[in-house]
């Protein structure tokens, strides 16, 4: 045990007997262990960064999206005076007459609660959503028996006021604003104290329809949710049977020949084709060639079905492959045909796996946006619920991710908030689907 052996650099090279006590770390080992620790640290750092990204993403979604689920309302009473109502209905622009009604009532309301202001009624109306006139009219038309009564309304406030109560709009921001000014906000503050203006849960965001660019406070994601639902029905009905049939053929019956190889190559390549290319396919085949209606969930569903097909085929084949050959042999051994063995024994045993794969494929399709942009499921206002099944499939509609994209493109921060909120809903759906898939897998997973 000399110094020479402890420091490798001084080692006299080959045939050197490595002495040295095991109980002492030589310098080289110490260096190597440090490298080991560093290397391990890189791994920990990499995973930490990855997880931090995930946390940052979820944090951004939740922090920005939660406010979309609440909305600021102003509660006030309006006397539905018969004369005024008739006059309004008689006029060409009925809703603007109703607006005036609301404006006057608002002035009264402010006076009632003891807020003094020298603002004109018209100016005060800037605090409310532009849609209040239409809402009063809707109430009057739906229940004419209310005419002559004093009715309590919960009006949506304007998106700026809503933004102010949520902290999205600061007083400084209003300096450049043509409409709202600081005195409006003073009134809002006072009304908040009085309980006339309050921020509560907003169901209309989940169930409602999209609104025009200037009225973010009215916009909801409900209609596009239906659009997504109809698309998913199409995807399920088209992709599942075809995918399962194709998998059964390839896994159980396909002879080893060029056609089979070619199909296999096609499937594995389709799985990696960018989704936008499926959008081009949908546009060219379903709209340009087959003249199916643009923006229809049917077309969107068909396009997404083609996109999901490889996913379903790949997972179905994996589940079929997991069923041990002994099951097939057993069935064939009692005289079943190959087809009977597959449909009576293999397929039922593979069903949970197929289902899991299908749910995951559907989840993928539900979140896909790019192809929908090309077949026109954006760019218009999804304001109407479909009338029935046929119109659900054939009438123009949007889909959740497309609606989110649409909102993200509108330059109003109030719409950004709704886009984040929409993402929370979308992710909630995806999470549910994935959890169902995981539960199915845990529950029915069989180890042979």
């Amino acid at each position, binding site marked *: 045990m000399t110094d020479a052996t402890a420091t490798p650099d001084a080692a006299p090279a080959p045939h050197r007997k490595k002495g040295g006590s095991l109980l002492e770390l030589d310098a080289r080992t110490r260096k190597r262990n440090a490298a080991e620790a560093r290397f391990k640290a890189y791994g920990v750092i990499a995973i930490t960064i990855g997880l931090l990204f995930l946390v940052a993403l979820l944090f951004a979604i939740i922090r920005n999206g939660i406010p979309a689920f609440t909305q600021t309302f102003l509660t006030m009473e309006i006397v539905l005076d018969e004369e005024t109502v008739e006059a309004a209905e008689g006029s060409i622009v009925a809703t603007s007459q109703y607006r005036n009604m609301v404006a006057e009532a608002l002035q009264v309301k402010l006076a009632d609660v003891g807020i003094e202001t020298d603002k004109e009624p018209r100016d005060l109306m800037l605090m409310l959503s532009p849609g209040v006139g239409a809402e009063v009219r809707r109430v009057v038309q739906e229940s004419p028996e209310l005419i002559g009564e004093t009715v309590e309304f919960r009006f949506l406030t304007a998106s700026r006021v809503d933004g102010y109560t949520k902290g999205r709009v600061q007083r400084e921001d209003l300096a450049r604003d043509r409409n709202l000014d600081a005195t409006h906000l003073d009134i809002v503050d006072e009304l908040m104290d009085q309980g006339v203006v309050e921020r509560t849960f907003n169901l209309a965001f989940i169930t409602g329809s999209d609104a025009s660019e200037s009225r973010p406070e009215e916009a909801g994601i409900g209609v596009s949710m239906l659009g997504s639902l109809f698309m998913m029905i199409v995807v399920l009905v088209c992709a599942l049977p075809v995918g399962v049939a194709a998998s059964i053929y390839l896994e159980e*019956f396909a002879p080893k020949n060029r056609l089979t190889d070619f199909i296999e190559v096609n499937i594995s390549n389709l799985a990696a084709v960018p989704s936008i290319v499926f959008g081009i396919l949908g546009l060219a085949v379903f709209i340009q060639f087959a003249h199916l209606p643009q923006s229809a969930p049917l077309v969107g569903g068909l396009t997404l079905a083609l996109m999901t097909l490889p996913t379903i085929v790949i997972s179905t084949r994996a589940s079929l492959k997991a069923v041990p050959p002994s099951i097939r042999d057993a069935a064939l051994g009692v005289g079943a045909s190959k087809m009977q063995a597959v449909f009576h024994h293999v397929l039922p045993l593979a069903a949970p796996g197929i289902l899991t794969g299908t749910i995951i494929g559907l989840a993928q399709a539900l979140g896909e946006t790019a192809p929908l942009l090309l077949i026109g499921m954006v760019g218009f206002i999804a304001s109407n619920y479909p009338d029935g099944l046929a119109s659900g499939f054939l009438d123009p509609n949007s889909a959740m991710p497309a609606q989110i994209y649409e909102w993200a493109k509108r330059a109003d921060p109030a719409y950004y908030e709704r886009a984040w909120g929409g993402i929370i809903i979308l992710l909630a759906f995806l999470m549910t689907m994935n959890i169902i898939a995981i539960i199915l897998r845990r529950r029915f997973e069989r180890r042979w």
Partner: protein
Amino acid sequence: MPVLWILAIVLVVALVGFVLGRQRALSSGQGDIRNLHSLPSYYGYNAALFGLVPAVLVLAVWTVVQPLVVQNSVIDLIPESAVEDAGNLSLVMSDVRRVADGLDVAVAEGAMSAEMAASLRTDFTDVRTRLGNVGVALGSDVTQDTLRVAQRYRELTASGNVLKTIVVLGLSLGLTGLALLRTSAQFRARNVVEQGVLLLLLAAACIAILTTLGIVLSLIFNTIEFFQLYRWTDFFFGTTWSPSFGGGSELGIIPLLWGTLYISLIALLVAVPIGLFSAVYLSEYASPRFRSIAKPLLEVLAGIPTIVYGLFALLTVGPLLVSVFGDNGTLGLGWMQGGTAVMTAGLVMGIMLIPFVSSLSDDIINAVPQAMRDGSLGLGATHSETVRQVILPAALPGIVGAILLAASRAIGETMIVVLGAGAAARLDLNPFEAMTTVTAKIVSQLTGDTDFTSPEALVAFALGMTLFVITLGLNVFALYIVRKYREQYE
């Protein structure tokens, strides 16, 4: 008769065929199923399949082909002058179709009688206003030529529909009858049904081929049409991208490709080190417990839809980067003007790709046989030396394949770049500038009402074709490498 009705009738025929086939077989076997070759339901399926499949097939093909045939036969009726006026035959044809559809609507709503629609003349009726009244808006006045062609179009379509109904229903009934005739105790129904089912399964498998074919054809035809309007050399070698729908566009792909590659490069610079080190740690060092938590959590990143990443880029990462690198940023560098930039999109895309790289690499590292690790550890190598000098070199081809697959993902990614990268096509080196990509431009050229005739719209197909070829090439190459690698250890 509408297609849905025909389909419903065919289904009913098949159902009846099933019941009859089953009964007939049973009665032919004197009610004892032991006298039959196959189980009775197979005779039913036999009849049902015969009644259903060929008829539905013919129906589908007919429905797709008929408009093409009709269109081809009316094209001769269109005078040269009309084509010259409109500038393009397909424009005239779309006019014709719109008028024909309008007449259909008018007849359906009762605004016109069927005879009237067939004998309308522009000299006597203002077709545009009449159709406008029933809610069919036409872009221009209807010329007598167009109207005449539209009427002919309707005639042909109508008679085609009648013929289709007769043929399909006849086929369904006839084949059901034939199947029933053949039904007897000795008939090998099961074998026939199984052959039929096998054919159906094969057909389903061929959908994959059809899809690929559909993609290729829809890209090729439109791309060819584009290159007839725009020189291909200008497209592939042009360094300016400035489409204007008024004409005089410059549609060079180079700046778009540059943006695509630049963003993908940054994404890979983020994703590859993080993904690779994560994979090494998870597969070589992590305890099973840690692995079972961290791996699914990382994979959550892969399950998040790209629109979410797009929004994250646009609204969170972009402003954040500006606040650091922007004009008044904390670093005071003034490199970044707006939130949308190559860096923004690349960074976020990198996050998205982390689980993609890490899971693939994880699989590949796990495929390296344990014997390699034992051999190295047995020689006194530390774990990290084993990983760096034995496992990673052994896994290298597989990892390269994984990175190529990730690159192909990055190149084809759309939503993140649409929202995060900006819209300006630029050839620039500054990663804090806004640039745009092939996918983003496909979206912007094809969104909205597209008429498929201007080069500005058709260029999207040429872009799509380029994208398809690049990603396909990368994938085929990557899968080839990965497969070679797997074979090495099997």
